[in-house]
């Protein structure tokens, strides 16, 4: 994999012409209105790929996936060479887990088609889309490889994070995962990478003492700098536990819970905060409440990697039979 620091330094210098967008300027009308206008226009002039594509974009804005798909399919019939239509179709299909295989086939075909140099600007997105599908289906090695290739074309924080998540499932790639995170974090200081790096450094049974020291320094700096500190208190508690300081861990967890409580909205909270609370509760052996938070977070569509700290904290803690979940 190419040197990520260099890639990021060059990010500013990256030069590419954005692929032309065929959608029109009508969007300052509302989507329903534009759909009406486009439909009327097509009734008059007959469908064209451009009109269908434009209507699909509006259907997508209205989250009407089947209608978007239908328009895009029809558009591909009329303009089989237009890559933007195919990519849009792949994106729409990928929204639905059951259609992911179709999306994968489509992406594969597009990659083949546009693999000759010079690669178009959207090529990196095609590869990242492949990575995302692989990640979704647990094909860790393939996912990591895809993100490597995408990052080489265009370094993006999201892809670095996703690459790390793929690698985290491959024990033999741990060093590679950490190195990648350290490099990009050093270059960018981006908080999404810091969080990823700390969690990777704090892997129970795997982390070394040196990694703990590295994590400690990062965590302490955040605890000093931040106003809301629960995320970092929980990480420090985890470190305390690993190193056998039970009382210190409990104190951190209690402080984290006190801070979290007023931040968690009763009906529709930010899922990240729910995961944090669940993890803190699980570490304090309040298993029933922690499980309730796990269910709540799942209900809010938290992806597996987001749930991981909570799932990990619950692992090995048997559900008490007598207590009913607090919901």
């Amino acid at each position, binding site marked *: 994999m190419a040197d990520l620091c260099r890639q*990021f330094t060059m*990010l*500013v*210098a*990256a*030069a*590419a*012409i*954005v692929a032309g*967008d065929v*959608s*029109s*300027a*009508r*969007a*300052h*009308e*509302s*989507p*329903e209105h534009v759909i009406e206008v486009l439909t009327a226009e097509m009734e008059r002039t007959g469908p064209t790929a451009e009109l269908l594509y434009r209507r699909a974009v509006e259907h*997508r*804005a*209205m*989250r009407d996936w089947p209608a978007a798909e239908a328009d895009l399919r029809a558009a591909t019939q009329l303009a089989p060479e237009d890559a933007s239509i195919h990519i849009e179709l792949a994106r729409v299909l990928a929204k639905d887990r059951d259609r992911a295989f179709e999306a994968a086939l489509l992406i594969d075909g597009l990659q083949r088609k546009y693999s000759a140099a010079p690669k178009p*600007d959207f090529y990196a*997105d095609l590869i990242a889309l492949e990575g995302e599908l692989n990640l979704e289906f647990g094909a860790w090695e393939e996912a990591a490889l895809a993100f490597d290739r995408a990052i080489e074309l*265009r370094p*993006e*924080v*999201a892809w670095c*994070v996703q690459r790390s998540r793929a690698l985290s499932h491959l024990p033999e790639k741990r060093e590679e995962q950490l190195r990648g995170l350290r490099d990009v974090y050093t270059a*960018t*200081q*981006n*908080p*999404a990478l*810091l*969080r990823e790096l700390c969690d990777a450094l704090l892997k129970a049974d795997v982390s070394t003492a040196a990694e703990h020291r590295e994590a400690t320094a990062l965590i302490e700096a955040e605890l000093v*700098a*931040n*106003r*809301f500190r629960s*995320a970092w208190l929980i990480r420090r508690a985890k470190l305390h536990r690993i190193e056998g300081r039970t009382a210190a861990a409990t104190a951190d967890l209690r402080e984290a819970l006190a801070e979290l409580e*007023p*931040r*968690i*909205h*009763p*009906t*529709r*909270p*930010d*899922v*990240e*905060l729910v995961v944090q609370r669940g993890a803190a509760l699980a570490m304090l052996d309040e298993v029933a409440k922690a499980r309730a938070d796990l269910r709540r977070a799942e209900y*809010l569509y*938290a*992806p597996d*990697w*987001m749930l991981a700290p909570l799932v990990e904290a619950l692992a090995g803690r048997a559900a008490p039979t007598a207590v009913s979940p607090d919901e």
Partner: protein
Amino acid sequence: MVAASLRRLIVTSAVIAVLLCSSPLLAADKPTPLTRGPYLQLGTTEAMTIVWRTLGPTKPTVHYGTAPDRLDQIIGPAEIVARVSAEVPPVEQLSTDKPLPLHSAPTGTWQYEAKLGKLAVDTKYYYAVFDGVRKLAGGDEEHYFHTHPKPGPAKPFRFWVVGDSGTGDDTQRAVYDAMRSYVKIEGQRPLDLYLHVGDMAYPKGTDDEFQRKFFDIYQPTLRNTVCWAAMGNHEGYTSKGTTGIGPYYDAYVCPKRAEAGGLPSTTEAFYSFDYANVHFICLDSHDLDRSPAGVMAMWLRADLDRTKADWIVAFFHHPPYTKGSHDSDKEGSLIEMREQIMPILEAGGVDLVLTGHSHIYERSMLIDGAYHTPTIAQGVVLDDGDGSPEGDGPYRKSAGIHPHEGAVQIVTGHGGAKLSRKGTSPVMKVVVTEHGSTLIDVDGDTLTGTMVNRYAVRRDLFQIVKRGTVTPQIVANPRQLPPFKLPTKFTSVDAKGEPVLPTGAEPLIARHAQWEFLAGDHPEGEAWKLPDFMPAKPWPEGQAGFGYGDDDDATEIKTMRNKFSVVYARHEFELDGGEKEQITDLGIAINYDDGFIAYLNGHEVLRVGVAEGSGAKAKKITSHNPKGYEYFSMKHAIPYLDIDHNVLAVEGHNNSLGSSDFSLDPYLVAVKKPGGNKEKK
């Protein structure tokens, strides 16, 4: 041989020509090469970036100092970032190493980005940009900047917020001019910052559209005030948040490495910055992942966890709550910003959310936790008052930043594009379908929001005060605005040509009342639709109706046929104290031929037979043969009634100059609650 030496000669002359061009000796003969700017970007406590463009390369230099006649500091080409259009005449390439490319600037465009560093905090500087020794702009009272005050301590300041402005037309200019004249009114203060919530260059955000519809219009402000921008969907046609490439990203220099405070986002698409005791957060609601697991959300959480400001202001394009030209209950990006991003912002203690996209002004009550789709008012309103220091009093929150103590949402997408309204979002307190923009003042523990319309008239005022400890409480049955209905097409007229009025209807403006009218000319601007209109030349008065050719006109306009097709009429009327609250229905009864548009206190409330435009620019007027008075319900217009002083203005249109007749004969009726028992508020 000859050919080769000739070619060398041509190249040499070209080089000399380039050198001569930047020489001061010839400067006086040459038009300025300046094509954009200079304007400010990325202000911090100790730095400011000055950006400008020239046609053809120059020797970029900035002189700056603390007085316009003492620009004693200089930075030159070695320290200034140069960027150049994708296509460059070959000769120009000789003068520099490969500069960074611009996305789609006109051929031969050079853009210079000069970062002036090591400046004193909270200090006013003046500047001028030069080509070598030739001054291109500045060195006067208009070219200045202020470095940011230290983050943390309070310092009174004002920022301007505008959205969906990029039409390049008179409306955009009117909104801008209105703001500028408003801030010059006694007791007002000038702008310290400028936020644009997106859609700044219709229709596709091209380089050329940016020039004509953003830079050319706002230049008097841009040269001394940093514009902090959020990307709109129209910029999205040519610029991409994922790559950070396009005319939008060429126009703006936004923080990627937390240069102005906050945490590094590694992208210009979203970022944060500090100004005095306020933390500003800009998000890309258009083309990046809005999910709670996306990198934007991850960055946002960390950024909110970090800030120690007294106030948090977030701005982005797609509004979480709107029923203007867009519907936040139905459209994906709006739903996602509400369901997925608002919980993060409110758990982080956001105070104010500024958006656009929907072409209207909508301002909420103090709300929290309104994440449900569709949006409902129950369980989310912490204060159902108007927040006005002149009305129900300011919204109250605890001092400092606390989660879920309520935020005010403002949709300010009325900066230029065509207005429209679908309904009333249940969380809104003030909805104004007028062009305008928003001013926000922050003074210590008090934040004041003002909406100024295109006539420089204040149309909304609210405050948030953060003092002591306030325990937020949900208002059980919040007062809401009346439901909005689109003007009904339903009309009713009986066989005798009398309108079928609702039971109990009484006139607010009597049939055949005296109206002021204007025939044979167009009124200047829009002031004629407002109360207390004072034209330079007084309008004549006449009894309604107005027209010719069908023997039904009390005031005959004999000169109209073949000469003009529009007649304007206005009638002021008063309501008694408490009368407005009793009105349950409102409508217009009108004998018209062929079309008309009615305005109540400046709001367009009814349009019949005029498909496009208004006044001199009205188009597509449908022919209509009157059968007498027809009644049109205008229940939706009741909120626009003023408690005392009102005006109904009507413009009547003939569908052709040569038409054989014309009629405009309106009157206004209302239904009031029976018994006149005044309800206590």
